């Protein structure tokens, strides 16, 4: 029986052996139908559309959309560790700051090109994730949240004090003018494309992970870690990999952000409000899905821009009030709520309020 015959997979199972790599790929390709590949095709179409849109819109909007794309990537990244795996990290911004500082230090102190600094930043993020992940991921729930928060605050303080290398409280600047610049500044169109690709990649990674065996393992760890480990899932490896992937995406975003800002201080890139925004976007959008964090990121970033431009001194106040209202009325997330509404045809906000109250 040839290895690429239609009954390849079945044949392999009947013969009691694992499928070869080629068999796996062929089976995957043959199993693609319109029904299960349309999300990916739609995604590609959207990305193409947004790339084309870039020619039409003006620079200010490009900057706004770049911020939206960045938060889409950040929200997806948080969702991987917080939504799927259930380990709510409250210090995810630590990877953002690390990615930003690795990039800035390499470019400023050693005149390294951005295209070398960025992969270094990603690598640094993964390394740090493994380093703190192994001890911290043994903690659960609130404790894990606090520990990661502590790690973020601690990292910021350490960088704040390493003045000779990082500039400390005096800030760091990436040279972008004249022959000082190791890489030419991207400009708004460049960053638009960069963040768009990052957002698309994060959604793709999220989707692939979610539908893979690894994704099932993550959800299993979330639902019942003891049971998961008793069926043979190595929960530590699952958690650390999820943490690492999440950290890598966030570090990459940090690297791009650093280059975009050119000049920043530790408090800027280790700002806990980044983490809060990440969490809000995922929770309000609806955790545990791809669309939820996407909706949350887009909606909240546009909302906060709108508030800041139009409401002047009341913008933070209104923003806080909106958070309170949305959390009370849409505890499962806005996207999940509308999903339920569409499937059950019952639209009752009061019922929503009654869900979780005592």
């Amino acid at each position, binding site marked *: 029986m040839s290895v690429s015959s239609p009954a390849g997979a079945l044949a392999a199972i009947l013969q009691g052996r694992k499928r070869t790599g080629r068999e796996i790929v062929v089976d995957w390709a043959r199993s693609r139908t319109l029904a299960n590949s349309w999300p990916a095709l739609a995604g590609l179409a959207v990305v193409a559309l947004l790339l084309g849109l870039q020619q039409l819109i003006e620079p200010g909007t490009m900057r706004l959309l770049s911020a939206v794309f960045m938060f889409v990537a950040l929200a997806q990244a948080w969702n991987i560790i917080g939504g799927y795996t259930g380990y709510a990290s409250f210090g995810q911004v630590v990877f953002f700051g690390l990615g930003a500082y690795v990039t800035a230090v390499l470019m400023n102190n050693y005149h390294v090109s951005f295209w070398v600094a960025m992969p270094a930043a990603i690598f640094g993020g993964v390394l740090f994730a493994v380093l703190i992940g192994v001890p911290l991921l043994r903690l659960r729930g609130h404790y894990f949240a606090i520990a990661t928060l502590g790690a973020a605050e601690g990292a910021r303080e350490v960088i*704040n004090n390493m003045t000779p290398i990082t500039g400390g*409280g005096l800030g760091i600047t990436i040279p972008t003018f004249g022959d000082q610049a190791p890489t030419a500044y991207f400009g708004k169109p460049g960053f638009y494309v960069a963040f768009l690709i990052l957002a698309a990649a994060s959604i793709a990674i999220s989707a692939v992970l979610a539908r893979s065996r690894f994704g099932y393992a993550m959800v299993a760890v979330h639902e019942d870690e003891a049971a998961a480990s008793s069926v043979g899932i190595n929960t530590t490896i699952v958690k650390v990999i999820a943490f690492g992937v999440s950290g890598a995406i966030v570090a990459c975003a940090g690297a791009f952000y650093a280059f975009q800002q050119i*000049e920043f201080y530790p408090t800027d890139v280790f700002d806990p409000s980044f983490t809060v925004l990440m969490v809000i976007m995922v929770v309000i959008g609806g955790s545990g899905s791809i669309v939820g964090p996407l909706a949350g990121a887009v909606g909240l970033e546009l909302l906060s821009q709108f508030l800041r431009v139009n409401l002047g001194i009341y913008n933070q106040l209104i923003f806080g009030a909106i958070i309170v209202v949305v959390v009370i009325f849409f505890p499962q997330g806005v996207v999940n709520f509308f999903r339920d509404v569409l499937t059950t045809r019952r639209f009752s906000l009061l019922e929503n309020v009654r869900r979780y109250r005592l």
Partner: protein
Amino acid sequence: MIRRPGALIAVGIVLALGAAACGTSSNTSTSGSGITFAAPVSQTGAFGQAEGLYTLQGYKFCVQTLNAKGGIQYGGSSHQVTLVTQDDQSVSATSAQIVDQYNDKSYKLILSPYGSGATTAVAPVAERNGQVLVDSNGADTAIFTHGYKNTFAVLSPSSTYVTTIIDTLAGLNPAPKTVAIIAANDGFSQHSADTGVKEAQAKGMTVVPSATAYTSSTKVAANVTDVSSALIAIKGTNPDVIIISAHLNEAVAAIKQASELGVKPKYGFAATVAPPTPAFISALGTKSEGVIGSTQWVPEISASDSIFGSAKQFLTNFTNTFGWSATQYPYQAADAAAACEALALAIQKAGSADPAAVRTALAGLSADTFYGHIQFDSTGMNTTKPMYAIQIQKSAFVTIYPSNLASTPAIWPAIAA
């Protein structure tokens, strides 16, 4: 029956994005003969309602006064000025973003936000976009080391803050022999302390506990309310004067905790930004008496111009407009008004509002204003205007340095033995 609600929602999101992208109309800059000054100012956050407010009031007052006098005259006609501001929430990154957005609306004439941090973030953006940035309240010398050509600061740079205090102290009787310097961990405070230490040593004063302590044992985190570690490091060294090179929070905390810890300087306290800020007196009450502060502007200087009149007239008109007391005035507003005035003068000199022409006019500007002399060196700093010193006496700012401006003598020692 909708089978894939997630799909519907995803489509909705994309439509929303598209709407946001296309819907954001580009309202081009004011048409006609009007000129727009654009400024990101802090209205919320750490500087909101305080230093950000003073800066905003300064800009508003300047634009009001200009327009009342018929606007900026050039090319045979008068041009009214419009001030456009947006809240940067006291976050430097937001300031930079706002200035970038201003560029998309073709606002090329930019007045700085409050603070060295925000100004440091905004300067490269203005440089890249070809906007002209006039800096009112960002004194850190580091801003001017990057070779930016479009940033001009009207205020005296950070190198003068602590040096002015040292010079003031050297002229008092008894002159202190030992000084301790507490400096916050930010560019402005550290650089001020740098030059301050050198000046102290030049005047024969000893810096305790050591000349580099302000980078280590007497360095405090920025924006904290607990400086006890720095004070404990000073305890036992018995300085004559304790100088605090930081902003409002740290200075208030330092003076309050100093008496708690029994760290009493023999003669008195001095600080850079905090004492000449109205909030300092209201925060410390009686403990603010006798504290010396370096300030960018005092109303006693014999400077005047055709727009604001004399320095005293500026003070009277400004405090009447915004409800300040004439003895507790925010000098940051004077900085802001001066920056706005410099921009106006440059436009007049250039005969157009074109950013490149305005930039050239600013580079060659040499004007005497209510604020003092405004002239920029090759890096964009104004090194022709000195700083002054005030002392708080009976909850009022009293100018004590230079001596030709001091109508009332300093109370020295400021601390009862």
